[in-house]
């Protein structure tokens, strides 16, 4: 046992492969960035649907949120990678295939758009009606009101919640290795297949992710604390 323990914390094997693992981590960051953009824009759209005056739009928005908030991200990933291209192919009558990276961005982006939509909606509903009425009285268009009055306040209010969601999204990017996006976990399992030494590599991967996410989440926590005091003052 002590031998195994020593082996799993002997991270020299992990260090030896640092360049390929580093490349994997960059893929994690790329998937994260692209998926975050998708999640933010789709989430904003869904939130606007949910608070729309027209009932059908509200129904669509609510369906979107309930569907993606209740979906496990792994099954969505598999579904987007293996089913969605066939469905699109049936419609445009041509063979379609998604690059794993594209599938990963779509799946994670849409799953997290459900959570972001709720954050946006909560922020929008907290804005006093008087602000919107004042904007209209000045002759601003609805779009201008959204950009100049609503969104600046919403962003300020939802920032702490959004940081938490971003961290969850970053954690979720580890599963993209399962559809062969060459991220850190994927490269770790490739190296393990060659070296047959799972102990140091899995331990190293777990510690790497822990350190990154711990740093991110403690920064986010400290920042949110200050931010709350600032916007309350």
């Amino acid at each position, binding site marked *: *046992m002590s031998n*195994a*323990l020593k*082996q*799993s914390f002997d991270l020299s094997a992990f260090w030896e492969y640092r360049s390929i693992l580093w490349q994997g981590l960059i893929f994690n960051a790329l998937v994260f960035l692209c998926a975050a953009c998708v999640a933010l824009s789709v989430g904003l759209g869904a939130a606007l649907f949910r608070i729309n005056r027209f009932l059908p739009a509200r129904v669509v928005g609510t369906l979107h949120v*309930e*569907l993606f908030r*209740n*979906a*496990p*991200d*792994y*099954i*969505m990933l*598999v*579904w987007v990678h*293996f*089913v969605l291209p*066939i*469905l699109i192919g049936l419609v445009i009558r041509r063979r379609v295939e998604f690059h794993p990276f594209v599938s990963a961005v779509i799946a994670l982006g849409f799953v997290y758009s459900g959570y972001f939509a709720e954050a946006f909606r909560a922020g929008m509903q907290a804005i006093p009606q008087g602000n919107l009425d004042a904007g209209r009285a000045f002759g601003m268009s609805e779009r201008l009101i959204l950009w100049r009055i609503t969104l600046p306040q919403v962003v300020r209010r939802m920032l702490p919640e959004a940081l938490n969601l971003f961290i969850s999204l970053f*954690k*979720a990017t*580890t*599963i993209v*290795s*399962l559809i062969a996006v060459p991220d850190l*976990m994927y490269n770790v399992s490739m190296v393990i297949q060659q070296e047959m030494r*799972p*102990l140091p590599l*899995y*331990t190293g*991967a*777990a510690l790497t*992710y*822990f350190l990154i*996410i*711990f740093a991110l*989440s403690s920064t986010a926590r400290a920042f949110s604390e200050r931010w709350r005091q600032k916007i309350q003052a």
Partner: protein
Amino acid sequence: MGNWERLVWNQRDVLFAGFAVTIEVCAIAFVVAILGGLMLCLARLYVAPLRWVAIVLIEFFRDTPIFVQLMWVAYVWPEVFGFPNDFFTAGWLALGLQSSGYLAETFRAGIEGVPRGQREAAFSAGMSPVQTLQRVVMPQVALSSAPSIVNQFTVIVKSSTLVSVITVPDLMSQSQKLVNVWYEPIEILTATAGLYIAFVFLISLTGKLIADRLRQRFGLAAS
């Protein structure tokens, strides 16, 4: 429609066998998460020598992605600690440990939310610290954290799809096996996704109902 009947309805036994394994893994992980979270939380608050151990464990469980933790528990632990010996155990253990980290923080917030005066009143009524915890503090914590506990169960169910990666025959892995046999992913994967979404939706709906009930009966601002 023929495809749905052939690929999904006629395979319902396989899919339900997988669903049963999913429920089993999630139920065991849920119990582990509650007990583990309670222990971590109490150690952090009341057992001074173990305080830092508990904090490190809580942070480690919370800040490591579930997939990475699952692989780590499944492949590294058997060599280092001599258990878990099978992947089913590794699956619920990893799921339970991760959620225990989150629940420990939920319980701590609940305990710290009980006004100090109540504890002092219990002491002056002659209750021992254990009795105070048992009769005054914990019932309130159970009420205030009930919604978060249910929410954590949905997280467990969502993460449990990943145990298919370590060959536990859950719903996800059964449906992938069917896809590999028939080479027709559309109906099978869509049905599986639908089943998961419906299941998680049902749990969170139950959670909302429980929260409303608690609020009505006990007038608590459960959120």
